[in-house]
């Protein structure tokens, strides 16, 4: 029972950390996304027109991609709501390898077969899009699907406003992320505009650090509790069986059985029983891993034991180590008995 509880908690932490790491990898550690709402009453620039580029001065610190996210959504026969973004001419070098000769529309989706052409509809308009897997600049933008259309393809959507979305990929060794964010804010202040909404990996990194700190605390607490509980359980067994173990080992010694062999036999017996029980508990959990942790709300793709197996980790090794410490403790009664002369025990 103790092993089961400890394993569930440690595996849950492992899954949480992996989940966060996956999100961080998808987003990119050097990626910063700026989102600025542009309404049709925007004094700086009207929709459907080229806007002044506020971030041009940041180009030397990395690459960027400017897109416009529409408020309205497109549809596919099997997906009713698809986010739409539009790209301008400046994005063409980045999109060069993604565009299809038959269509300028790209549908980013992880689950659909790449290179296939799909029909999408927006209001009463139809278009054909080529399916691409979201990579690079597009990875942090895509949840389920993203439809990327050239600017001006759906003018009525742009006319009601959009979110100017700029994805930065900072070069390593230049500005730090906080400095980069501060630079964006300063640029907006200079233009007397409200600062945009900024999304970066800093939050996720902090979350990961917090989780790791909590995980370390839990591991320490768990190791302490598990050790204490196992020491109590095995200690109680050792006390209850003390007289019996000491008596039997003394009797065997009276027949000439070597003390070391008796101790090793007792220790092996305890270790085999304790390890069998612990490993059975861990294997039972591994068998019901998807059901149990799926019920606890972990995403299904994270629960695939073939990609990463949290039951084959040093946390589990730590649990088994404690189990073996307990088995060792419970065999101490025999060790104590072996120090007494046979004639005193069997008197």
């Amino acid at each position: 029972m103790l092993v089961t509880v400890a394993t569930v908690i440690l595996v849950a932490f492992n899954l949480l950390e992996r989940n966060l790491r996956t999100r961080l990898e998808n987003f990119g550690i050097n990626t910063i996304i700026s989102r600025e709402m542009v309404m049709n009453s925007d004094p700086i620039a009207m929709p459907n027109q080229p806007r002044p580029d506020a971030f041009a001065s940041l180009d030397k610190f990395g690459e960027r991609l400017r897109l416009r996210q529409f408020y309205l959504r497109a549809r596919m026969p099997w997906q009713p709501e698809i986010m739409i973004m539009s790209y301008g001419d400046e994005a063409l070098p980045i999109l060069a390898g993604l565009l299809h000769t038959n269509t300028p529309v790209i549908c980013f989706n992880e689950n659909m077969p790449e290179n296939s052409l799909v029909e999408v509809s927006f209001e009463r308009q139809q278009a054909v899009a080529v399916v691409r897997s979201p990579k690079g600049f597009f990875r942090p933008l895509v949840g389920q699907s993203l439809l990327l259309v050239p600017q001006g393809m759906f003018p009525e959507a742009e006319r009601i406003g959009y979110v100017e979305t700029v994805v930065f990929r900072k070069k390593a060794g230049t500005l730090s992320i906080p400095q980069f964010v501060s630079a964006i804010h300063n640029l907006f202040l200079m233009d007397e505009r409200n600062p945009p909404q900024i999304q970066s990996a800093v939050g996720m990194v902090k979350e990961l650090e917090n989780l790791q700190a909590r995980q370390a605390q839990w591991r320490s607490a768990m190791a302490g509790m598990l050790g204490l509980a196992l020491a109590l359980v095995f200690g109680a067994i050792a006390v209850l069986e003390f007289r019996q173990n000491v008596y039997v080992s003394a009797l065997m010694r009276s027949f000439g059985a070597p003390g070391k062999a008796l101790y090793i036999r007792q220790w092996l017996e305890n270790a085999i029983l304790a390890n069998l029980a612990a490993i059975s508990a861990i294997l039972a959990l591994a068998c019901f891993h998807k059901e149990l942790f799926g019920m606890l709300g972990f995403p299904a793709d994270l629960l695939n034991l073939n990609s990463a197996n949290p039951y084959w980790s040093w946390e589990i090794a730590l649990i088994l180590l404690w189990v073996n410490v307990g088995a060792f403790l419970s065999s101490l009664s025999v060790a104590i008995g072996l120090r007494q002369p046979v004639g005193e025990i069997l008197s």
Partner: protein
Amino acid sequence: MSAVPLSIASFPAPPEPSIERSGEKIACEHLFFRYSRKTDWVINDFSQQFRPGITMIKGASGCGKSTLLRLLAGYLPPSSGRVEMPGGFHPEDREFQRKQLGFVFQQLNLLPLATVARNLEMAGSLAGLSHEETLERTQHWLMLLGLKQFADRRPAYLSGGQQQRAAIARALIKDPSILLLDEPTSGLHDLNTQVISNTLRHFVTGPRICVICTHDHRLEFIAHEILDFNRFLPLEGHLVALAGTAE
């Protein structure tokens, strides 16, 4: 529990055994022993030789007979002095305890969860006998001591006499050269006592040495030598022992 017929007829008196009284001896030299520094000496400067044959040690309760037997078996370390076994063995040698020594405790100390046969087999196996030999000897001693029908019973389901015979069978299965018995017939009726004494007389032949600690006068007739242990007691302990005996 069904009673098993036990008759003297099934244990015919063996021919008078031939004893090599001049063979190798157990030698105790200036043996001292006490259980802790705060207690009096239980064995106080005891020197004696135990020759082949049966030596019976008698004495008052608490005079140290059982302690001496444990010292001879190497189950207690002497505070000073030494015990030398035939063949140059030291009593605490594992090899000696495994192969040469047969010991019957006053409390019998049969393994409670093992059957009678298993108790014997375990002793034989620890003595290094082959599996076949162990089984053969187990059957032999169970039959000789009238325990064959109880082979598969656990000690708790045997009478006191049957348990006593099982303990003796366990000591004899390894064919020991030294046999030490602590009160082997205490509380047993005459028939059981006779079975045990006949078995011992039959077994202790040649260079074998058997030391029996007992109050039981019925065993005196098989002894080649009787040692009154009271005389080794210090004066005060002697008086206490005498008072105990008088009571």
